[in-house]
């Protein structure tokens, strides 16, 4: 049996491990353009600052390919011949034949309309791939940390194509002769705030250009976001809210500023972080069914529209808990889909179905946890909100509907989301949840316990 997996990210690698556990003798090929090793994409920011080395972000030992007998093809897949069951490779690489194929090719940065028509403008980039990281490191730090870059960084180039997100990007800093002094980050989401934080950690006072009225309205209320914004401002981040980017200024092909609806912001390095889209441009001519956004449509068994071809991770369009069909672009969902699709590759009937949504992040030094339905404007929605200040500063927002708790949005403390999800699934009342709320905290020792103010309890 020939198993071929495109992508050695969290989805692809977990699928490969699952298959190998069951079948010691099956041939497993991992095709990967970006890197030799499976790494944690979520950790790019720490590599940038120097907190982690590339090796530190790789969850498996580097000999795993030899040890588990995975064949590695380092290069770009450029198309598929589904009738002949073959993956076409770029450059001189031979096509790869499969019996069962998994596509786990992840996301790529969302292309920005305001960046079109600038030709070879240098100094503008993204923060999603290893190659983006290397570019941004060169702009701000002059290069990677003393731990170095990833091994064989350029091994894919001979098979790569110009439109690949894994193309290295020249840095304006090199042409200009000095490192970036003014950095601008466009796009107020999680990747944006990470790009801002790393520039701040490098000693800069980055500009943060956000189209919306406040930072990250998808996840935070205005009130909550105000705290994050104040914290960023304390650190010297220059926030530009309700600012629409229109284009760039440049000198000799090197970016010199960002033109916006509110004037020009001087910048010698610009990170465009307006989201990610499925990395499926190379599948445009194939007979796989893609959704509106370009994600590969899969059924509950993670099967695509073509027999023996599966998809998982960021590039797969799955049915969400609320019935909507779109990709889940999260680490733990990628891991779970990978494990499950691994069993499908073994021939099992599997069903993938996600439970109540949750996520967490760290926004500068403020920890954020969300569970359930927050920001969905439910019919008859109620909201409880309170803040703590003192040794611990935190905010708690509980969304409920007709006496049943539906969601939590929490800043400042650590929370065991598993308990919060259980309460949602048990349809607990706001009064019950408030009475037990401290049990769901997951703070480190000696952090004072949460106490719910009396007036909030009375309100419930």
């Amino acid at each position, binding site marked *: 049996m020939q198993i071929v997996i495109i992508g050695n990210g969290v989805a692809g690698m977990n699928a490969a491990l699952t298959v190998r556990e069951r079948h010691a003798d099956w041939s497993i090929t991992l095709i990967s353009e970006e890197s030799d090793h499976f790494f944690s994409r979520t950790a790019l*920011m720490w590599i940038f*600052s*120097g907190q982690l080395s590339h090796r530190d972000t790789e969850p498996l030992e580097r000999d795993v390919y030899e040890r588990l007998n995975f064949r590695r093809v380092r290069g770009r897949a450029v198309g598929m011949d589904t009738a002949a069951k073959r993956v076409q490779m770029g450059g001189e690489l031979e096509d790869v034949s499969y019996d069962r194929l998994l596509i786990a090719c992840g996301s790529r940065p969302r292309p920005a309309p305001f960046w079109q028509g600038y030709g070879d403008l240098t100094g503008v980039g993204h923060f999603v791939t290893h190659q983006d990281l290397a570019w941004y490191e060169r702009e701000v*730090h002059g290069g990677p940390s*003393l731990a170095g870059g990833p091994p064989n960084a350029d091994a894919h180039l001979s098979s790569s194509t110009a439109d690949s997100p894994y193309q290295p990007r020249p840095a304006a800093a090199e042409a200009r002769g000095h490192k970036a002094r003014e950095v601008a980050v466009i796009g107020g989401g999680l990747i944006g705030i990470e790009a801002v934080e790393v520039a701040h950690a490098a000693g800069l006072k980055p500009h943060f250009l956000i189209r919306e009225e406040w930072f990250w309205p998808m996840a935070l209320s205005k009130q909550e976001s105000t705290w994050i914004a104040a914290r960023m401002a304390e650190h010297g981040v220059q926030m530009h809210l309700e600012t629409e980017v229109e284009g760039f200024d440049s000198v000799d092909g090197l970016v010199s500023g960002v033109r916006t609806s509110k004037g020009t912001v001087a910048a010698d390095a610009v990170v465009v972080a307006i989201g990610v889209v499925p990395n499926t441009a190379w599948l445009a001519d194939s007979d796989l069914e893609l959704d509106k956004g370009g994600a590969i449509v899969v059924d509950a068994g993670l099967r695509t529209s073509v027999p023996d071809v599966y998809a998982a991770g960021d590039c797969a369009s799955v049915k969400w808990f609320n019935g909507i069909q779109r990709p889940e672009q999260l680490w*733990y969902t990628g891991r779970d889909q990978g494990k499950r699709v691994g069993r499908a590759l073994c021939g099992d009937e599997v069903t993938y179905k996600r439970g109540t949504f949750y996520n967490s992040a760290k926004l500068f030094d403020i920890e954020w946890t969300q569970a359930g339905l927050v920001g969905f404007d439910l019919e008859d929605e109620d909201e409880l909100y309170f803040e703590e200040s003192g040794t611990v500063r935190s905010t708690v927002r509980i969304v409920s509907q007709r006496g049943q708790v539906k969601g939590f949005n929490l800043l400042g403390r650590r929370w065991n989301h*598993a308990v919060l999800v259980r309460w949602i699934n048990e349809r607990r009342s706001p009064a019950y949840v408030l009475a037990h709320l401290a049990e769901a905290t997951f703070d480190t020792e000696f952090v004072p316990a949460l106490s719910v103010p009396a007036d909030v309890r009375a309100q419930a």
Partner: protein
Amino acid sequence: MYAQGQDGLMSTYRSAWRTRSPRTYALSALIIGLYCALYFTDVFEPIAQALHLRNKWFLYGTVYSILMIGGGLYFLKAHGNSRYHKIRIAVNVAIQVVLGLSLPYAMAFFGHPDYYFSYFWPLKYDYLMPGTLNYLPWYLALYSVVGAFIIVPFGALFFGKRWYCSWVCGCGALANTFGDPWRHMTSTSTESWRFEKVSIYAVLVFILVATAMMFGDWFGGNQIGWFHETAEWTKYIYGFLVGSILSGVIGTGVYPILGPRIWCRNFCPMAAILGITQKAGRFRIAVKPDMCISCGNCSTYCEMGIDVRAYAQQNETFTRSSCVGCGMCAHVCPRGVLKLENAWDENTDKANAGQLTIEF
């Protein structure tokens, strides 16, 4: 305001002082040289005398305390926003400055034997040797015995190994203060773990044998020439190899290139005993299910080379005998996945995890 979690990003690998570089190798060689001079020559005696210290060991204690306090301030600057770290480091340094330096000095000054209340057998192996017990005043002898057989194991049973290794011990205090800049140098490789498993119990067996022989010697063995000689020789080798070379020269000397806990992880017999009791006790690191992003901060900054990420990825709450409970994994985790706790009750995370991922 921000009582937990790493505050700001670290720039560890962007400093040549914190990566394997000519600089850190030179620093390592310097420390090893100083330790050799201290243990095997008397070059520090005149300096001690010039400073009106009784002998070179008091000079060593003074330098040790200065490094610990300076390193402690560095540590607090880097991680002091966390309440766990603030309290822990303050207690550990205070105990060392009082019990490890000032009190013995004062006792010596008043003509007492200089006794270190913060050390127990087998770390201070002569505290349970019959010769020492006989020579100490009865209350100190009693403290030595109670310390080794009751305080140490029961402390670990209730609070984990950390009560000693990260809150009291002098080796631990130096590792977590002066040694903190190099904690990421500890190897996480499978080979380093294989080595540790063998070496730490080998030293434990060594000290058990040496102690038993000293008792045998005391209770009549010294009448038999060859036995007496072997016992003395065993004690001497232990003192030289483990007491000086492994704990001092190597243990501290390789901080800048192999991390600050080489001694604690691979050789300390006290750590071996504490680790065994910790496994049977309440202490554990709770893992919040399905929230880990596999970033590797925990494994990188674990000074004992434990692959914490591997447990976190598998939603597995765990207790490892080598874990000294420094709390750094939980501190640097950007998703708040880990939590150090003392609890007897069954962990419920597995049950909770079942609700997150719909099984098939």
